[in-house]
């Protein structure tokens, strides 16, 4: 099952680059890239850190497909 990931849209809405988001969350830019592309499903902890930095509920960033 693939997650529906809205990370890129919310990052770009805040005008953040992948590198800036990675710095804020404490991961590498490569990991942000793979999460945005749906290649890598982050842990619950990392998903929550993304949500906190972007000021968005985690279930808005990551959703199960219908």
């Amino acid at each position, binding site marked *: 099952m693939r997650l529906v990931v809205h990370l890129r849209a919310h990052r770009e809405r805040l005008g953040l680059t992948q590198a800036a988001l*990675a710095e804020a969350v*404490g*991961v*590498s*830019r*490569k*990991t942000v*890239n793979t999460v945005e592309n749906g290649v890598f499903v*982050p*842990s619950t902890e990392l998903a929550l850190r993304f949500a906190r930095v972007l000021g968005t509920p985690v279930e808005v960033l990551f959703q199960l497909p219908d």
Partner: protein
Amino acid sequence: MPLTVARIETIRTACYAALGLTFLTTAVWTLATQSIPPVPSPVYAVLGLAVAAILFAVSAFAPRRAVDAAYDEGADRAWLRATAFGYWVGIGATVVLGNLIALGRIPPGPAFMGAAMLMAAAPFAHFLLAEARRGR
């Protein structure tokens, strides 16, 4: 020159490339010539220890946050998959070269060394390819 996440990743890539290329070159040479390379075996140990020392020093002197980011869960997963790939390469090499030994096509010594070096090279090759893809 501050050790940023990108620099730590670059150093790790260079270290892994050095190990992977050494192991792969040795494997190809061993299997192609069917003889043990004329390289003293401690050379491999020294190379491995040198790489370990470099990576340890980088982790020790770089900012903790940059080290944690360079070795984050994405990198962990890439390495986990790379070692799994190495496991299957080891199984495959053992099966193929074991049969070639049984058929008398290759002496046991070079076959064992070739299989070991292929198994050693595989995780590094897989990880480096995965890292290249992750960066795109």
